[in-house]
């Protein structure tokens, strides 16, 4: 093999390690008996996992996260898909609406957090899961809209014309023909929405109280107060889950 290829392989390996090492580092930490995160003792223990699954705070946070993320996924997918459908005709108002809807991708999360905090208290939703769902939906809509839009742009307009010529009124043209053809984009958008909500921390910190805090918020609080390896145990669990989800998606894609 030429030297050039060896060098390229080496650099790629180093970059890959650099990217993945911090993630993998938490796995051995989570099985270490030391009670302070980041100061390993070298002794094996599953104590932190036991703590994770017995302490009520974690269970509550996990349940909160799951509820918020699920509802956000449903809402953001529906609204983001509707937005993408509405924006296909590039009207002047549409371009403006598009700008506003995509703004959460660019506006710093801190600013959204402060704004949401004030507004949700005003609406009497401060500290509630519903408040979190609303905020996360705002953050997730642009991701859904972008994913669905790119999928819709692949759908030949002739399919709608064909459906129309066959007697389908406009809403049936959309539900029977356009949406099924844009399904991959909608699924991707839903996944983005779920992930956006699942690991959102900045805005959530402003909105959650002790009863409504989500996993990322609780993790952040724990790091601030008691730096136990329970965090590493949780991180390892989440890593395993994401890996499984990713593998499942790849499998689905291959079967298609």
């Amino acid at each position: 093999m030429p030297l050039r290829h060896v060098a390229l392989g080496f650099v790629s390996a180093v970059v890959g390690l650099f990217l993945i090492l911090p993630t993998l580092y938490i796995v051995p930490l989570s099985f270490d008996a030391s009670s302070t995160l980041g100061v390993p003792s070298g002794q094996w223990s599953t104590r932190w996992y036991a703590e994770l699954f017995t302490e009520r705070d974690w269970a509550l946070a996990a349940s909160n996260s799951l509820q918020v993320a699920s509802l956000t996924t449903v809402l953001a997918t529906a609204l983001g898909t509707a937005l993408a459908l509405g924006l296909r005709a590039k009207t002047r108002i549409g371009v403006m609406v598009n700008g506003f809807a995509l703004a959460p991708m660019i506006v710093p999360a801190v600013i959204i957090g402060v704004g949401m905090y004030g507004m949700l208290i005003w609406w009497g939703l401060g500290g509630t899961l519903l408040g979190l769902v609303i905020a996360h939906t705002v953050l997730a809509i642009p991701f859904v809209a972008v994913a669905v839009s790119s999928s819709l742009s692949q759908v030949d307009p002739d399919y709608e014309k064909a459906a129309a010529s066959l007697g389908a009124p406009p809403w049936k043209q959309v539900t029977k023909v356009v949406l099924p053809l844009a399904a991959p984009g909608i699924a991707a958008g839903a996944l983005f929405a779920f992930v956006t909500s699942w690991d959102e921390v900045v805005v959530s910190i402003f909105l959650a109280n002790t009863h409504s805090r989500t996993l990322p918020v609780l993790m952040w609080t724990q790091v601030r107060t008691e730096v136990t390896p329970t965090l590493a145990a949780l991180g390892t669990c989440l890593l395993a889950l994401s890996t499984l989800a990713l593998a499942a998606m790849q499998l689905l894609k291959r079967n298609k």
Partner: protein
Amino acid sequence: MTGSSTLAAPSALTLTSVGKSFHGERAVDDISLDLTPGEFLTMLGPSGSGKTTTLNLIAGFLSPDTGSITLDGKDITTIAPHRRGIGVVFQNYALFPHMSALQNVAFSLEMRGVRRKDAQRQAHEALELVQLAHLGKRLPKQLSGGQQQRVALARSFVFKPGLLLMDEPLGALDKRLREDMQLEIMRLGRELGCTIVSVTHDQEEALVMSDRIAIYRGGRIAQLGTAEDLYERPSNLFVADFMGEANRLEGRVDGTTFTGEGWSCRVPSSAPTGAVHLLVRPENTSVVSDGTSSAATGLSGQVIEAIYLGGTRKYVVRLSHGGRFEARTSARSGPDLTVGDAVRVQWKPEHAIVLPAEAS
């Protein structure tokens, strides 16, 4: 047979001064058409001449800026496409990729509230008509181009529209398949008894299939008539050129005499006078060796190409006064000339097409 097999009543279609502009450009300019029920009309013309726009206006995918469209006496100009009940075959077929062939065909029936079971049966019958009943379960991508075309046809007529529109229906097929499908579409047209409007840029397809042909040019109809009208009696140079090959000579007509550069010939008394183009189709041209007794008339020249084409021979003659002339003669009964022979090209006066010269 059941009630589902009753034929559609063919529709009468009328377009009155229909116009449509895109960004200030007239795509369709003052088109008027009148189709009798059961007629097969082909709109023929180069791309961008407005024929597909006309089709989209009839289907309702576009609405005209001016003029009106009536179907069976009813004004449909502003009716939404899904309420028009017009069958459409798309250029790329536009079969729904997520539905099987049978589901594609049954779609229009389900939209009309036909019970699922009946819809499936009628769709099956429609697929039988195009000889594809055995492939109903396949997805479009599992079908060949010709099979997709048949499914698209079945889908467009299963709900018994009185009018069927076809946009370059055979454009994506190879030549052999295209010829088969031309005959198939004509058979279906007769069996279904619907009025058909087809768009093509293939003049042979238009000649084979149509009762009448509308030749499009720059958003207008350059001429409307039977294939014979257009070929034998074109009303302008564009139509004459578009419908097959023609040799073209310029000159003047006074009375029944055409005068070219240093020669003249007789033309029918119906010919226009003044500055004209005189056109002669290659198959109406005969070529004789110079020096034979019948060589007193016609234009003299020299054979520069002699091509044997099976049933016919094609000669290209360079005329003495400049210009070239093509002739097609029977391979058996025509003369056997070779390159370099001095010849005269001749035609019967009634075969000359005389058109007034146009500023182009």
